[in-house]
């Protein structure tokens, strides 16, 4: 039982305990419900900071872990195995960082069924943390599927007009990918006698005939989640209908689960296939970068524009990952954090204007900077972070990714990086187009003339995101340092196969 006092288990228990506490509170006491949820998420964040201080950043391996036999599956044991390493620690931190911000953003936006909303939100946090901590395939799968349920309800109950369609679509897309992944997991576990990820490293070499199929099954599940072109169409619908906080978490963390899956499964388990697939996945990533940017440009709904921009930005992440070199991988992981910050902030901003005007149509706005100078300024900063202005976070991520892709021997055609770099131009095109139509020019609609500028609570949700953006932009060293050993370890696994291909 002492094992259960493991720091990571406690981290998982905090949001669950908060959910339990919420269950005890009468639903009518909305304010208390909100505070309990916020404090729970803040405790989880504070606790994760302590956990971070315990993390040895020079150690490339799994840390702070625990492994308890859980279920017996034939002769194979499923373990409750959780641990953290340089690949996942930043994702854990991102989750605990974004959750309180997202909860704070719902203060006035969510008025109905507050208790249920908060309960689902904390459950979601537990599920996401589980995904990043799990080191056993079945446990990973359980958490993976588990995150679907609260998000499904968050969209389906608190969402917009077409919430049911969007929620079901979100569910079905992810499920269809996951089922193949489950099959692959079961087959692997049964033939290899273990579900434990550390023990399955390089397993592709043991089952060369099946490795390609298994890689494909995992890749499909993760590509849908990321989402990669052409499996992305669930995302704009889900975002448009999701409540603001749901969008923040969906873009900020849930999508990262897909990219993280590539890092945790596809590359270490099937390094030889990963090397062969790298040029093709890079190609899809590049198509996604350009395609997402082009489609974002013509969207009339600001939230949809941001959703398509995610397709473009996540393309950079995947491109970096499959560069399979330190620059690409570290840039990719950093960009996962960056996208969580800047796109999270963009969704918060969209939510703020939606709360005031109940529309997100670009043609309903114009000249808002003059009416809401604080809102205009903060949005501009977030937009600049998102377009990758040097000095802010997005640039450090994109630059290292592109440099990684350009110098990658796994991707082996420099055109990928050059084409991807055009995404830098296109991002400026759609984001400044949006900024101009919403914030610049004269005020064209009477109802916008007297909109209230942001209040202290709203500013408070944005400032932490911007502060970390500037920190990463100017001094990314701690972020790179914490992931570098784990990334090097991952590269050591694939490196021999890159040499073989060449």
């Amino acid at each position: 039982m002492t094992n259960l006092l493991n720091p990571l288990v406690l981290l998982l228990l905090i949001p669950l305990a908060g959910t339990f506490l919420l269950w005890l509170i009468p639903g009518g006491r909305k304010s208390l419900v909100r505070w309990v949820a916020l404090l729970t998420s803040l405790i989880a964040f504070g606790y994760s900071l302590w956990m971070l201080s315990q993390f040895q950043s020079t150690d490339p391996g799994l840390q702070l872990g625990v492994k308890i036999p859980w279920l017996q599956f034939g002769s194979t044991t499923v373990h409750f195995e959780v641990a953290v390493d340089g690949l996942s620690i930043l994702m854990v931190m991102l989750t605990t960082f974004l959750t309180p911000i997202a909860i704070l953003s719902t203060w006035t936006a969510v008025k109905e069924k507050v208790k249920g909303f908060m309960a689902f939100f904390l459950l979601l946090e537990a599920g996401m943390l589980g995904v990043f901590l799990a080191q056993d395939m079945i446990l990973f799968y359980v958490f993976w599927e588990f995150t679907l349920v609260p998000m499904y309800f968050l969209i389906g109950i608190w969402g917009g007009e077409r919430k049911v369609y969007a929620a079901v679509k979100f569910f079905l897309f992810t499920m269809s990918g996951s089922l193949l992944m489950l099959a692959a997991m079961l087959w692997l576990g049964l033939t290899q006698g273990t579900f434990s990820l550390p023990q399955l490293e390089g397993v592709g070499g043991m089952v060369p005939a099946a490795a390609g199929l298994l890689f494909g099954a995992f890749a499909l599940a993760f590509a849908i989640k990321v989402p990669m072109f052409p499996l992305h169409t669930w995302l704009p619908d889900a975002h448009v209908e999701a409540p603001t906080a749901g969008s923040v978490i969906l873009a900020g963390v849930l999508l990262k689960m897909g990219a993280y899956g590539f890092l945790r499964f596809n590359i270490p388990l099937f390094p030889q296939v990963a090397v062969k697939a790298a040029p093709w996945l890079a190609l899809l990533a590049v198509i996604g970068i350009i395609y997402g940017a082009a489609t974002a440009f013509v969207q009339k709904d600001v939230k949809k524009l941001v959703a398509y921009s995610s397709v473009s930005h996540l393309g950079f992440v995947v491109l970096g990952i499959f560069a399979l070199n330190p620059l690409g991988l570290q840039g990719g992981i950093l960009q996962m954090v960056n996208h969580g910050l800047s796109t999270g902030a963009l969704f918060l901003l969209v939510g703020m204007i939606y709360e005031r005007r109940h529309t997100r149509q670009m043609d309903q706005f114009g000249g808002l900077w003059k009416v809401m100078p604080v809102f205009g300024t903060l949005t501009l900063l977030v937009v600049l972070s998102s377009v990758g202005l040097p000095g802010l976070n997005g640039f450090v991520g994109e630059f290292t990714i592109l440099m990684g892709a350009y110098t990658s021997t796994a991707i082996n055609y420099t055109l990928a990086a050059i084409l991807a770099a055009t995404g830098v131009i296109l991002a400026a095109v759609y984001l400044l187009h949006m900024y101009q139509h919403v914030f610049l020019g004269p005020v064209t609609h009477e109802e916008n003339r007297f909109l209230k500028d942001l209040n202290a609570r709203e500013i408070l949700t944005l400032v932490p995101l911007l502060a970390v953006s500037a920190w990463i932009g100017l001094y990314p060293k701690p972020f790179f340092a914490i992931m570098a050993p784990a990334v090097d370890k991952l590269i050591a696994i694939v490196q021999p196969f890159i040499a073989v291909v060449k």
Partner: protein
Amino acid sequence: MENATTTLYFHLVPLVVFLPLAGLVINLLIGKKLGEVVSGTIASLASGAAFVVACLLMLSLRSNPEAVVVPFAEWIRVGGLAVDWAFRVDTLSVTMMLVVSGVGTLIHIYAIGYMHEDVRLNEDPGRFTRFFIYLNLFIAMMMILVSAESYLMTFVGWEGVGLCSYLLIGFWFEKGKEGTGNAIAAKKAFITNRVGDFGFLVAMFMIFLQFGTLSFSELAHVSAPVGALGTVVVAGIGLFLLLAVTGKSAQLPLFVWLPDAMAGPTPVSALIHAATMVTAGVYLVARSAPLFELSPVGPQAVAWVGTLTALFAATIAVGQYDIKKVLAYSTISQLGFMVAAVGMGAYVAGMFHLVTHAFFKALLFLSAGSVIQGVEHGHHHDPHADHYAEFDPQDMRNMGGLAGKMKVTTAVYIIGALALAGVAPLAGFFSKDEIVAFAFGKNPVMFTMLLLAAFFTAFYMARQVWMVFFGKARTTAAQGARENPLVMTIPLMVLAVLSLVGGALNLPHVETLGKWLEHTMEGLHPAEFNWLVAGISLAVAFTGIAAGWFFYGRRSWQPGQSDPMKKLLGPLFTAFERKWWVDEIYNALLLQPYKDLSAILAEPVDQKLIDGCANGLGRMTGWFSRGIGVLQNGLVRSYALVILAGVAAILGYLILR
């Protein structure tokens, strides 16, 4: 102090960035409470203090001329890439620092007076402080650009000044044509520059892959890679850097943003879009000299782009009526001279012209601002004027006869115009002549084209001076124009003096600037003074001025008349007037197709084809599992319950087995 124990101030170099930032922070926090004069003074002092630091650096370099690298903080170290925040103090970077902060400070001071009027004319006095926040930010970013030790840090400043340009062009973001003109101009500038920045990025990829570093110190002594691939790579580096230059320094084919950038308040046009930011491309080529010298392809392309731009933009300037647009195309043309110079390897001549041009073009823009506010004043104080009707205080056809009303402005404007036209012994003569002389020995075609551009330069400046200052006032606004206060005219006089004597920086056979830059750039070609060329280019300047007088001075421009050149040149002049239809061509060939493509991708492709396929697949699965009816009835909970049950069933199966 000029001895062995001279104090060295190299460690102070971070201050050139942090002092303007300090000014920015003060104004951001309390600027509005301080009032206009204090707020503007703080910003000017912040920029002035950076100038003092730059002077100290210059003194240190005089006794210790070798480049010094001052590390500041670690930045990006991943894999083989190691780029830190580090400053580079050498004669090239300090030259730029002096120009940026020196001219910058004068423009800050001028802007205290100019913006006082401007915010009132635009009916939003609260925006005064914001202007100075942006200006300080610009100085800081420009300092990062020129003091960086690596391409990557230069790029931070490079895009940072682009941001300032965006903010300042769109300073009156609710004004301009149809209320959105300024905002669109700002966006155009940023995006066009991003195309250039793409070139910068790719060049950095190539440099890093080839040489394994982005540091200027380490790249200073690289040797050309062997083999066919290496040749292609070094040529590619030059060409992609050139793309970056064409963006920032408004050269063919990316110059289109600069004329529209005149939407910014006039001090911005002077500082950013004439004297400093747009010269960053010239600086970049000079800084990259060791890489450019590895392959003849890059430098040749640079020289040709510069030469073509010099001539092309000069022709357009002839056909413009907006006082600032003439200067804008003139700037593009003059930047073409500089780019051509550095492309030909005449780095000193290019930098020389950069410095003198900063003096006289800042002078011209600021005086133009003075003219515009004078005319605007006349317009606002005209009791008969219809103040709601469109009146363009920048249209030269609305001016005339200002010489009697704005004496200081007129005098300094003429000095600036003569310097630009290349009349000896003003600053522009020496620097331009050095470029033309270099081309004379190098390539007769370029030489001829540059001379032709110089002729047009003298011609359009003569046209402008006569249209604006002489003849009779053509409107009541011009009639009522008055001179501006000293806070504006004193910076003008300082710049006028610099335009008069700036040529002394690099006189033939003395070559102060050349010897100064030699410490940084190896193997500089000594400037050759050629009496024949000097004579030809002077003759060209005077012919241009005479032609200008013949068409615009001999008989003064009458209200409502059309340009006399129109009769003479016909369709050719229309081409000048319409800017060779470049904007229209880009719109038809690039912008509209991208919009159309995006629309096709977003609707038919994304929503119909891709989403249709996905939904079709989903429907099929749903149909098979007979869940579709439940879904569409909206029984969300029951459906999720089914899924939950599914998960439970899998787990149960695992447990029970």
